[in-house]
């Protein structure tokens, strides 16, 4: 007591003494301890939330059924082999070498002739005199320069025309001449005779050049000729002319060093067949991806424009056409054409082959460069064409008989994903094994294995399908958008499906044999397949929620973020309450396990009380209590995840309990705890 008196006196004295300072003090909230009782969260859980729309069906009276489809297999066009073409390889020589028609002329004057012949003795320039008939004279050689056209040509065909225009005052006859190469040996190209060339007229004779080799400079030699003479005196003019013209026409060279005009030198048209397609008979294919590779080897000493044209391969209506340049004397030039999205007519049209082929054209062309180029019909190009990585996205035709085995493979079984243990018995279970075929191909399907597996308990059980007749025949889809679907049903009465579901499978091991065109009707070219359309197998499960359950354990793990709790440091010891209003015919126990990032269990909340089973008409209230100390709370706050575990049993273990859509369980989580407010 004395201490208390002193205490207050001292306090008062201090206060009074420090009055002048008192106005500096703030009126602050003192620290204190409260007992807080507050709801933390509330929620209402209906069967609609427990069972998502996608797997729930509701009858008129609100009775809920689980409808679940578990995909077992899905396959599509990718299962077909990659398509390949026959490797089209062809070597082609030049088909022709056209030489341009060209002419060269030479003028011989009368004076030149007089100088070379005996006529000079009787005829003098400027005289007017009668020209006497004179025979047996010769003249030449006359040189003609054709090097602007070629250096040398060995003709496959063609002609050399020699024309004489006589402007002398007398006719000439019996002109025998020779055409020789102006080379070292003066090789004879040809010879002929002009019988008569009247005054003022022109006469032409032709030499066949086939097989002849002609050089650019040639010689014309008049081996003999006669002068017919005149009856009357004529004026002698030494400038009068005899015009000689040499023309090469209609010529095709076998080989030449010449200036070639622009011309197609190669033209190939062929149908390319597909290989490695087994018994596929494809009439049409749309390329998802693919490349046409063209390899060209050329001995031609000139650049060649190379065109590859596939009239039956179209994209947006435009045929596939590519033009590239092959360099001179190219050992190997490779061109690749992307054909993604091209639709190929595989009937081989216009060279009808019905299926597995496509028609293409190759053209090689040289341009006129004005340069002398050496070409020969022995020159050649070699062309290789191949279709690479051709993956169709759509095909038509007969798609062949192919058997494919799938599995054994494990597929996820999600229906009991959250259930980790316990036993249940459904009043009714229906399972349908179904197949949906989006391709225009009939199939047969054998289900070899259907083994339900619980990987957590290592329990498994084979589904008894002996009541079903296998293989299943699967019709072709009538069109791309109209898949065919067929189902084969199992129930509690004709299988062990209830026992299989009691395994609480999270996996199913399945194995199938699938055969396309089991009847091998290869005359049917109207089949189709698209990579977007699949062949899928599934299990449809329908379970009306009328069941008996015993210790059915449902678990879920959620993230737990302590940062969302404000000012947790003020919370001391207390008690959590879970207040439940339950309409479901289940009683349940609840457990929450708080774990850290390393899966260490930090705290476990397991109220001793049970959630009482209610009914659709009468919800039952239960209060679950869990006292905690600050140390418990610290461990909870240190956790990062919480594992909810609910163990449920139906109210009755002999009568099936039905679940209706309007049933719910309402939860409120509240807490009573001491909270210390620190003074400000």
């Amino acid at each position: 007591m004395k201490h208390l008196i002193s205490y207050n006196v001292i306090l008062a004295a201090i206060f009074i003494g420090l009055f002048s300072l008192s106005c500096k003090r703030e009126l602050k909230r003192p620290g204190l301890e409260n007992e807080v009782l507050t709801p933390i969260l509330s929620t209402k859980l209906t069967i609609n939330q427990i069972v998502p729309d996608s797997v729930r069906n509701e009858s008129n009276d609100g009775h809920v059924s689980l409808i679940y489809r578990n995909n077992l297999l899905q396959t599509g066009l990718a299962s077909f082999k990659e398509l390949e073409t026959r490797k089209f390889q062809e070597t082609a020589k030049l088909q022709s070498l056209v030489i341009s028609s060209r002419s060269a002329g030479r003028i011989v004057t009368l004076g030149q002739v007089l100088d070379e012949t005996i006529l000079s003795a009787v005829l003098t320039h400027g005289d007017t005199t009668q020209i006497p008939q004179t025979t047996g004279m010769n003249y030449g050689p006359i040189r003609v320069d054709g090097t602007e056209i070629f250096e040398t040509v060995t003709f496959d065909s063609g002609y050399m025309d020699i024309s004489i225009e006589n402007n002398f005052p007398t006719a000439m006859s019996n002109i025998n001449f020779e055409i020789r190469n102006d080379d070292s040996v003066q090789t004879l190209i040809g010879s002929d005779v002009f019988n008569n060339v009247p005054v003022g007229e022109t006469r032409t004779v032709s030499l066949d050049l086939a097989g002849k080799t002609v050089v650019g400079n040639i010689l014309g030699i008049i081996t003999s000729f006669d002068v017919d003479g005149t009856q009357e005196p004529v004026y002698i003019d030494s400038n009068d002319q005899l015009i000689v013209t040499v023309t090469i026409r209609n010529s095709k060279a076998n080989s030449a060093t010449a200036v070639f005009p622009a011309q197609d030198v190669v033209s190939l048209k062929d149908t390319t067949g597909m290989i490695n397609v087994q018994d596929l008979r494809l009439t049409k294919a749309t390329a998802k991806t693919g490349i046409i590779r063209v390899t060209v080897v050329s001995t031609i000493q000139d650049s060649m424009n190379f065109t590859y044209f596939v009239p039956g391969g179209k994209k947006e209506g435009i045929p596939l056409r590519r033009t590239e340049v092959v360099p001179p004397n190219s050992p190997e030039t490779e061109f690749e054409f992307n054909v993604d999205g091209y639709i190929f007519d595989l009937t081989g049209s216009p060279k009808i082959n019905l299926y597995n082929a496509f028609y293409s054209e190759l053209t090689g062309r040289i341009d006129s460069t004005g340069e002398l180029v050496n070409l020969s019909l022995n020159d050649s190009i070699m062309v290789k064409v191949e279709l690479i990585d051709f993956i169709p996205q759509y095909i038509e035709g007969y798609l062949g008989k192919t058997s494919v085995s799938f599995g054994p493979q494990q597929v996820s079984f999600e229906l009991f994903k959250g259930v980790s243990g316990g036993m249940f018995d459904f009043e009714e279970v229906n399972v349908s094994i179904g197949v949906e075929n989006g391709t225009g191909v009939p199939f047969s399907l054998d289900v070899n294995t259907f083994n339900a597996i619980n990987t957590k308990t290592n329990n498994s059980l084979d589904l008894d399908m002996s009541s079903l007749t296998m293989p299943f025949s699967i019709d072709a889809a009538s069109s791309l958008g109209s898949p065919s679907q067929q189902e084969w049903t199992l129930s509690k009465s004709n299988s062990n499906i209830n026992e299989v579901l009691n395994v609480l499978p999270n996996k199913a091991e399945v194995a199938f044999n699938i055969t396309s065109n089991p009847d091998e009707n290869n005359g049917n070219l109207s089949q189709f397949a698209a990579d977007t359309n699949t062949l899928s197998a599934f299990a449809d499960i329908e379970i009306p929620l009328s069941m008996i359950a015993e210790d059915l354990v449902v678990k879920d793990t959620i993230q737990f973020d302590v940062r969302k709790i404000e000012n947790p440091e003020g919370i001391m010891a207390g008690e959590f309450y879970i207040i439940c209003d339950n309409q479901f015919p289940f009683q349940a126990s609840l457990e929450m396990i708080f774990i850290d990032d390393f899966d260490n269990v930090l705290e476990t909340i397991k109220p001793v009380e049970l959630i009482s089973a209610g009914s659709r008409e009468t919800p039952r209230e239960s209060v679950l209590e869990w006292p905690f100390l600050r140390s418990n709370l610290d461990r909870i706050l240190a956790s990062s995840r919480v594992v909810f575990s609910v163990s449920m049993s139906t109210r009755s273990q002999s009568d099936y309990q039905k679940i209706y859509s309007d049933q719910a369980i309402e939860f409120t989580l509240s807490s009573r705890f001491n909270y210390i407010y620190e003074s400000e």
Partner: protein
Amino acid sequence: MILRKTLIIGLLFTSINVTAQGDRLWTEQHYFDSLSSKQTSIWGASDYRAQSNTLTNQLMSEALFQGNIKSSSSEFLKDLNSEGTTRLNVGFQGEVWYRHVRKNGPALLFGVEINENLYGSISNGLAQLYLKGNAPFEDQRLPLGRSKLFYMSDQSMGFGLEWTKPAVIYGANLNLIKVSRFQKVEIDQPSFLYTAPYGAQLDVQLAFDYHASSSTQAKPGAWYGTGAAADFYLILHPEDGKSMLSVQAKRIGMVHFSGSSAYSMNQDTVYTGTNIDNILALEDAITTNDGLDSLEALLGLEESSESRAVALPTTIQLDYIRTFSEKLSLAFQLKQVLSFGIPQARVGIAYKPKKWLALEPFFSTGGFSVFDLGLSASINVNNKFRLLTKYELLESQVASANSTSQALFLGGQLIF
């Protein structure tokens, strides 16, 4: 004379009773049997008071002096009738006044005051909720309404005139007020909190207004509001000198605040915790929980910043002094702080064994308290220097857990 010319530093004390000129006069009559109304004087007083009808001295001392209220100290609140009213008055005051007597005309008064006062009249439910939390009152409806809290820290400078007549003294003074801190809360009648069993839900009906000045500036220099208050007093003292009647009205005035913060809410809400639409998608539900802004909107909390004038709590006080002899005097006081508390009655008998000494046991009832005992002691040195103390700490020292009020007054006067 030397004394007259000597500056005496008066004690600076506080008084929740807002010592005014009328108090000086009845005090002189009661304790010293001599009025100084014809003499120039200077006096100072200070007062500390923590009064309540329900909150124990132990609780208030812990709150005021330790800054922490022990849970055991507030345990008694669990048994308190929630429907009742808790009255509360905590404060400090200090004043120094100079009274100059002139030959002709009224005396002139000059003074400065410092006040720091908290007035409260709140429902017991609110006090219980604040001090104990809601858990002890599970499945009970805690009334929160009819609650008012008024807190102001201010400094003022005053000027007054006082007329002295043969049997009557009357006067008035006007104080100019600078406010450093201000808070005011009013919770209306229908407000309540119901905590369902196990805390399954909280049913809250809350209608309140809260108005506060800023507190960012340091308190001594802060100036958030400006006002004026007047004191009026009338003293009747028959010439026989055996009785006196004093009537006072203290702190009639207003304070104006510009740009203070105001919050108001009128909402009836059932709170069931964070509502999660789908417990199976709990992670999403938590991350999409509403923020504080939305919560405020949900509760209908309206915030504003506005200028407003606030009336000061005015005190009406009546004192009657009956002097039986040179040694015995009776003082009866009736006082009411308008809008807060209930009328307070005080009775004291001053015994003067010596001319320079007076002792007075007194008791009071009502007001912000229930029943308080106190002892006053005064010294009068030749009517030149007077010292008075009113000691009301006895209950808190002897039975702090069972008593509810404490106060201490100390004043001094130098008469020239």
